[in-house]
C-alpha cells in the first residue's frame, strides 16, 4: 500500500503551491538575462526582437556607408540601460556622434588601435563587457573567428563585427546586416545640412529568410527608424 494513493477513486487535487515556494521555482535564467535590449525600432528587424547574449552579429558596409553608426545603433539601448560596451578597432571615434546615437559613454571602453594583438585584446575584453563591437579591416582567420565566437558564447556577451566585406568574417553569423546602399538627405548644393540617412539593408538571421529592410540611421529627428521591410513574417 502506498501512502499517497490510498484514495485512488477520488480525483487528486494538488494543494496550492505556497507563494514563497513558487517564487523559488521560477526559471533561474530569465528571458531578459539571455538577451540584450535594442532600440525598439530596430527590434522589429531582429530575430526575437533583441540581441542574444553569446551571439555574433556581422554588420557590413563600405567605408562611410554607415556601418559603424548602424552597429552602434544596435548597441545603444543596451548601453543606455547600463550595460558595459567595448569598441575595438575604431581608431578615431567621434564621441559626440556616439552619444547622439544613444551610447552612454560612461560605460564604454575603447581600444582604438589594438594592432596585431587585437585578438587577445578582444578575447580579454569579452570578460568585462556585455556587448563588444569589433571593427575588422582584413579577413579574420578561421581559428580566430572560432575562438572569439566561443569566448562570446562562454562569457554570454554579444559580439558585433563591423567590416567592409561580409566575407571578412569567415563563420556564419547569428545575425547579418549588410548595407546595400546609403543615401543622405537634407544636404543640397550649398544649402541645408546632412540631416538623415537611409540605409537599405539585407537582414540575414539564422534560420530565417533573407529580408530587405530600410532603416533611417539617423532619421530627421535623430532617432533610429525602420522605414519599411519585406518578408518579415506577417509584416
Amino acid at each position, binding site marked *: 500500500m502506498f501512502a499517497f494513493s490510498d484514495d485512488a477513486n477520488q480525483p487528486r487535487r494538488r494543494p496550492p503551491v505556497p507563494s514563497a515556494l513558487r517564487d523559488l521555482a521560477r526559471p533561474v535564467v530569465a528571458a531578459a538575462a539571455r538577451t540584450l535590449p535594442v532600440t525598439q525600432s530596430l527590434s522589429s528587424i531582429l530575430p526575437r526582437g533583441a540581441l542574444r547574449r553569446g551571439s555574433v552579429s556581422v554588420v557590413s558596409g563600405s*567605408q562611410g556607408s554607415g556601418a559603424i553608426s548602424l552597429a552602434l545603433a544596435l548597441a545603444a539601448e543596451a548601453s543606455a540601460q*547600463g550595460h558595459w560596451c567595448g569598441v575595438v578597432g575604431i581608431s578615431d571615434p567621434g*564621441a559626440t556622434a556616439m*552619444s547622439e546615437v544613444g551610447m552612454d559613454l*560612461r560605460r564604454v571602453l*575603447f*581600444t582604438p588601435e*589594438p594592432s596585431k594583438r587585437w585578438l587577445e585584446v578582444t578575447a580579454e575584453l569579452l570578460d568585462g563587457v556585455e556587448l563588444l563591437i569589433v571593427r575588422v579591416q582584413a579577413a579574420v582567420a578561421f581559428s580566430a573567428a572560432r575562438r572569439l565566437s566561443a569566448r562570446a558564447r562562454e562569457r554570454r556577451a554579444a559580439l558585433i563585427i563591423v567590416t567592409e566585406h561580409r566575407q571578412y568574417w569567415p563563420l556564419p553569423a547569428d545575425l547579418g546586416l549588410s548595407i546595400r546602399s546609403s543615401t*543622405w538627405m537634407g544636404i543640397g548644393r550649398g544649402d541645408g545640412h546632412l540631416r538623415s540617412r537611409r540605409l537599405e539593408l539585407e537582414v540575414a538571421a539564422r534560420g530565417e529568410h533573407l529580408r530587405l529592410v530600410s532603416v533611417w540611421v539617423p532619421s530627421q529627428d535623430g532617432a533610429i527608424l525602420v522605414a519599411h521591410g519585406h518578408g518579415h513574417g506577417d509584416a
Partner: protein
Amino acid sequence: MVLWIRDARSKSNDVAALRIFAEALSIVGQRCPFVEPVRLGVMALPVRSVARFFGGELAICDLLRDDLAELLEHHAMELHIGIADGLFAAVLAASHEELVAAGETPSFLARQAIERLHRPEIAELCQRLGIRTLGAFAMLDEDRVLERFGLDAVHCHRVARGVEPELVGVRDPDIIKRLHLLEAPEIATTQVGFFGGTSARDERAQRIAIRLQSHFGASSVQVALDKPGRDPAERAIFDAFAVEQQTVLHDSAPWPARLPTPSPMTIFTRPRDIQLFDEFDQAIGIDGAGLLSATPAVYRDGGSRYGIAAWAGPWPVTGPWWRQQQRKNRLQILTSSGCAVLASHDGRGWQLVGRYD
C-alpha cells in the same frame, strides 16, 4: 599540510602565476574543501583530520600529486608537499618535502637553521651568540629573548618552540583579495547602485580594463572624457582608462554639438590636407565674406579625387578671443559615391577632419 607550487623556470609573470595558483586551489578544493591560500604558490590544508578518510597521509599526498600533475606539468611548475603541526613548520616541511609525524614537529623545528625565521636581525645576533638552529634558539629563556631581542623575537621564539603555529609574515594578507580580483564573477543581471555607486558589472569592466592595461599598456584601454573647452566635433577626447576617472565620467553632461546633428562618427586625430576644386580645376578657398570662392566640384585627398555631389556650409567656427587668428570654417561634403565627410578651412588650406561613418 602545505602544498608549495614553485615555478621551475620562474619565467611567468605574476598574473599568470596567480591564475595557475587559482586553478590548483580549485583542483585541491575538490578533494579537500578546507584548503586555504597562504601566499602565492602556497596553500595549506588541515590534513591530520582527513588523512584517515583518504587512507593515510601518504595516500592523500599521492592523490593530490596525481590531481595536480597535469596542470603543473603543463606550466612547468614543481610541487612540494610537507606535513607538520602548525603553518610555519608545515611550510618548512614542504620546502624539504618532509612528512613530519605527529608529535615530531618540535624536533623537526629544532633542526632548522635560524635563518628560516626570515628575521635577519635575529639571525645575525644569534649567529654571534653561537646559536645556529631554531632548537638552540628555543632553548633560550623567553625573558632573556624579550630583553635582548624585543617583542617580535618573543613571537619568533614561541614559533620556534612550537607553542605558536604561525609566524607573522608567512601569510600574504592580500592573497584572497588578489584571487578574487582574478576571478571574473558571473554576469550580474541585477544592477546595484546605477546612480552614484558602482554596480557589480561596473567593477567587472574596470577590472578587465586594468588587466588589459597591464598587458598591453595604459593607452590600450581608453574612455571618452568630457574636457571643457574642447570641441568634441573636432577633436577626439579620449584618455587612458583610470579608475579615478570614473567620477569624471559619471558627472559628464551631454556632449555639446557645435555642428548641426548628426555629428561625424569618425574624427581624424591626424587630419589630412585636401584640396577643393571647381569644375575648371581651379582651387577653391574661402573669401573675405566667409563664402566659398567658387562652386566646388571635386576634392583631392592624396592621390584620389572624389566628385562632390552636394555640400553645406561653410560655417564659421568662432573660437575664444585668444584664438581669433585660428578662425575656422567647416564644410560638409557629400561625395558622388554617397559618402559624407567634414572638411575644415583654417585660412590657409582645407583639411579632412571627419567622416560620417
